[in-house]
């Protein structure tokens, strides 16, 4: 049976909190924890499939043009080589998140340097890699290639544009204003597990073990790419070694493995090299942003302008949604927001953790800091003054709003000094020390989700969905929800994820996973409770379940009477998604040191205060926030994709030269979670948390860099060369 909810309004606040197990929200250790720490959790490339052949992708060495010839024979003559495949169905780009259809195909047509054009399959990995490196390919290169985002023709994104009042007049008339341009370099997700797939056909039925975030969409993408029915495809992703957007859609190795396995009649494994992951998976677009802000003498914003230029390949509709939270974060009557997309031939731009806000919020918050300084107002107070009571652009009330609380409580916990602020007020040895802050915001979404919950006759619960756990804690929070609802301790709940044979979840992306799939599990459990209540002659709301006992003296096993019960929960967003503005909010506070000789910057201390609805698991939620803060540090100080200006190839396609933060870059970090119930956010009153932690954080660090040393940076990341260049003498 299916328990369905399309959420049009608030859910009952008290229902879930009325449960008695006392499991939900608690800092329960991850239920899959011991599998991970002992190396027994199985990731995509690690499934024990009989006798797989090994495939290695071959990538283009031109930027744009055609593959005219591949010397298959020479490759096939090499030891162990089984096939060279350049099937027209092979994909050349990753699918965008939630695409649900095949991305670009036809590998003989090249549109960026490093694009997959073939796969070489051999008996062993060594043989395949060697043959792939030796494959002789001839091209017809197209010389007319746009590579420079500043020079390419912009395409305005009309859906993003807002014009209200008169920005220019308001800027001119204002007591204080700032008008500045900020550039952010591109980012890579750089999940630690490289993209990998093992494909295996049984007749016309295909099973692919892969590392993917959204199996519910990926199955359609893969079926479409291959031209087969979804019913003939099964995807398995039990453990995903990090995604951060890079595994939202099927990537090139998935289709290549499937085609190769079909052709060879034997399982084929294709694992991308780290360089390939960098070169042919998603990048976050570089951005060019103009911020125009003005306020009156009291520090009330009167003008709000935010314009951005981002890039992508021709044919891609994704445009880094830089303005996403700018639309509602601060009030100002005169508003102008706009986005341009330029077409350039770098690898696909797509979602990288917190698409949009990750770079839009820092830029906005850097401008806010400058304006607060001009207005002579403490930056925390300045933000508090500008929190709008309602969405400034649309008649969509906020489902809840925690920004003010986050600012206040965060400031207090951090020990924010609201006295006069001037750069270079504090120095320790060779280092200037400064502080800075920023607001955080990340739009909250939910998505359709289904999950099956079975109560076995022995009184165990089994939760099943094709939802994935990228490290976000899904396994554990679903066990907690089921345990809470059904009155079972956590060791009596089993969670099975990452298999398309299970009901379709929402996929893990856009931070909507936990709230959506959690709602589906909640609904299934609620339906099970109704049946149990019926058997116990009571109402569902009155049913007391704890540790397998039913209030009134009976046991769950007893009531089940030797029979299993099963329900599918089906959650769908409704008006709650369309008629309201739903967002997570927060505030970042950072203390930074800048070396006055060398311009090196280090984050000494960082605190994030976040409000995101119900905390489902204190431990894993905190970890998500810590992760976001770590990414903030990377975006602020170290992470930048560098592209060759002549052929657009990525010049730092590895983890030695693309600098994700190392352990030592992350000093004292603290998280404050402001728990609330947002009954419009989802059926379990929770919002997304996975991305909020990096939506603005880099801005707090930039503002602290200024406060430390007086350098107002206009580019992120703030590498020593940039800080030195911006340092006033």
């Amino acid at each position, binding site marked *: 049976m299916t328990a369905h909810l399309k959420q049009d309004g608030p859910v009952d606040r008290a229902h879930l909190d009325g449960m008695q197990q006392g499991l939900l929200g608690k800092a329960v250790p991850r239920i899959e924890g011991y599998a991970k720490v002992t190396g027994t959790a199985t990731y995509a490339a690690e499934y024990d499939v009989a006798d797989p052949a090994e495939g290695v992708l071959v990538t283009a060495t031109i930027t744009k043009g055609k593959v005219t010839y591949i010397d298959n024979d020479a490759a096939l003559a090499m030891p162990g080589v089984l096939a060279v495949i350049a099937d027209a169905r092979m994909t050349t780009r990753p699918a965008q998140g939630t695409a649900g259809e095949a991305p670009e195909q036809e590998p003989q047509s090249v549109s960026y340097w490093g694009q997959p054009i073939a796969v070489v399959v051999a008996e062993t990995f060594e043989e395949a890699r*060697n043959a792939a490196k030796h494959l002789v390919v001839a091209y017809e290169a197209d010389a007319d290639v746009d590579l420079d985002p500043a020079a390419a023709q912009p395409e305005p994104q009309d859906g993003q544009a807002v014009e209200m009042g008169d920005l220019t007049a308001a800027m001119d008339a204002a007591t204080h204003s700032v008008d500045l341009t900020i550039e952010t370099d591109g980012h890579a997700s750089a999940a630690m597990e490289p993209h990998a797939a093992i494909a295996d056909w049984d007749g016309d039925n295909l099973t692919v073990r892969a590392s993917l975030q959204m199996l519910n969409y990926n199955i359609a993408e893969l079926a479409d790419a291959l031209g087969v029915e979804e019913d003939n495809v099964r995807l398995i992703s039990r453990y995903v070694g990090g995604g951060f957007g890079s595994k939202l859609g099927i990537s090139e190795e998935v289709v290549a493995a499937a085609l190769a396995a079909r052709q060879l009649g034997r399982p084929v494994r294709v694992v991308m090299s780290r360089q390939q992951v960098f070169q042919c998976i998603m990048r976050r677009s570089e951005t060019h942003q103009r911020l125009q802000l003005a306020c009156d003498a009291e520090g009330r914003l009167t003008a709000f302008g935010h314009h951005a230029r981002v890039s992508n390949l021709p044919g891609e509709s994704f445009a880094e949604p830089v303005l996403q939270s700018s639309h509602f974060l601060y009030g100002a009557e005169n508003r102008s927001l706009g986005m341009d997309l330029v077409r350039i031939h770098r690898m696909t731009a797509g979602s990288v953790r917190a698409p949009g806000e990750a770079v839009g919020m820092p830029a906005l918050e850097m401008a806010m800091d400058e304006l607060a300084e001009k207005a002579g107002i403490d930056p925390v107070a300045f933000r508090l003054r500008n929190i709008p009571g309602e969405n400034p652009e649309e008649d969509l009330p906020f489902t809840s709003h925690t920004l003010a609380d986050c600012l206040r409580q965060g400031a207090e916990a951090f020990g924010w000094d609201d006295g006069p602020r001037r750069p270079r007020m504090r120095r320790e040895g060779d280092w200037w020390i400064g502080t800075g802050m920023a607001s955080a915001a990340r739009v909250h979404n939910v998505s359709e989700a289904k999950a099956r919950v079975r109560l076995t006759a022995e009184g165990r619960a089994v939760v099943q969905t094709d939802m994935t756990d990228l490290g976000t804690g899904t396994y554990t929070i679903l066990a907690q929800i089921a345990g809470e609802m059904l009155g079972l301790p956590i060791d009596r709940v089993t969670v099975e994820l990452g298999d398309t044979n299970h009901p379709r979840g929402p996929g893990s992306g856009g931070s909507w996973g936990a709230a959506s799939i959690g709602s589906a599990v909640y609904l299934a459990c609620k339906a099970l409770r109704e049946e149990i209540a019926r058997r116990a002659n009571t109402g569902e709301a009155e049913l007391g379940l704890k540790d397998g006992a039913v209030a009134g003296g009976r046991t769950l096993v007893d009531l089940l009477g030797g029979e299993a019960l099963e329900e599918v929960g089906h959650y769908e967003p409704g008006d709650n998604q369309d008629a309201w503005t739903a967002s997570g909010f927060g505030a970042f506070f950072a203390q930074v040191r800048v070396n006055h000789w060398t311009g090196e910057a280090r984050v000494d201390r960082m605190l994030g205060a976040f409000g995101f609805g119900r905390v489902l698991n204190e431990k894993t939620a905190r970890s998500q926030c810590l992760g976001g803060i770590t990414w903030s540090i990377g975006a602020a100080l170290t992470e930048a994709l560098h592209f060759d200006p002549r052929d657009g190839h990525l*010049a730092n396609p590895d983890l030695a030269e693309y600098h994700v933060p190392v352990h030592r870059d992350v000093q004292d970090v603290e998280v404050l979670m402001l728990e609330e119930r947002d009954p419009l956010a989802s059926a379990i009153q929770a919002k997304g948390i996975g991305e909020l932690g990096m939506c603005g954080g880099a801005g707090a660090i930039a503002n602290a860099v200024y406060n430390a040393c007086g350098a107002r940076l206009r580019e992120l990341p703030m590498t020593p*060369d940039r800080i030195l260049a911006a340092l006033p003498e």
Partner: protein
Amino acid sequence: MRPFDYIRATDPTDAAERTSAPGAMAIAGGTNLIDLMKLQVETPDTLVDVGRLDMGSIEEAGDGLRIGALVTNTATAVHPKVRADYPVLARAILAGATQQLRNKATTAGNLCQRTRCTYFTNIDQPCNKRAPGSGCGAMGGVARLHAILGTSDQCIATYPGDMAVAMAALDAHVHIQGGRGGDRQVPVREFHRLPGETPWQDNVLESGEIITAVTLPLPVKGKQIYRKVRERSSYAFALVSIAAIVAMDGGRIARADLAFGGLAHKPWHDPRLADLLVGEAPSPALFEKAADVLLDEADARGGSEFKIPLARRTLTAVLTEATETRT
């Protein structure tokens, strides 16, 4: 990775002989060579594993300290003598790579590690060092991390290591065995080459020559500093690094042995600096003059201009600290 023959050398003479065969290369820790073999940048036909030869000890010689070619970077950095008498060397090693890599990396391998220029490591890009005559991809490309001193029209790569920078400041010597010239010793300062017209030659080793040891001179008095400026706080190559051994005598600089990493195709040592500094009373103006001398021919051929002010400022910082000058 191409197929190759793998053999273990039985002694240094055997190693020298075997590596003199065309296409043969020595392998020690493998942390650089295997990296490059996977990328098909290095394609040896024969790998001569020298890893088990008896060159793995640190010994006190009458005239200093002898560090075997196979001593791991870790073993050098933790050696009590090195920590006590040559802290600049311990510090330089510890500032490089990671504990895992240093446990594997050897003295000789570290000296011979190749540039991190990403055009060099990408076989689908031009590079005069990897493929002579193919052009230099870095010039006009992404060359933020490239050299500003001693470059040529052929190549602007840097030598990426840290250990050798300290060894250059210490004026250590590389001991080489085999080859036509028999055994010889080369100062670390002269071991690496500038790219000139032959950028594929990183150093003076000739075919069939292997490194057996590095000797450090007797310890000297003075303050030893290794300062490495990098883009993250650990596990990153130097933008600029400075090894300094500076001694003071009666308010004047008595010794100023300086070497620089991240600036050139070799650990950079400029004898004019000691000439300028020694005998002088330290002052910001003096340090500026030193930087002027160091950088008088500095030339950034793509994106690495920032290294000029960065080197200047880092030098000032190091000299300020070493001489305890007030700023």
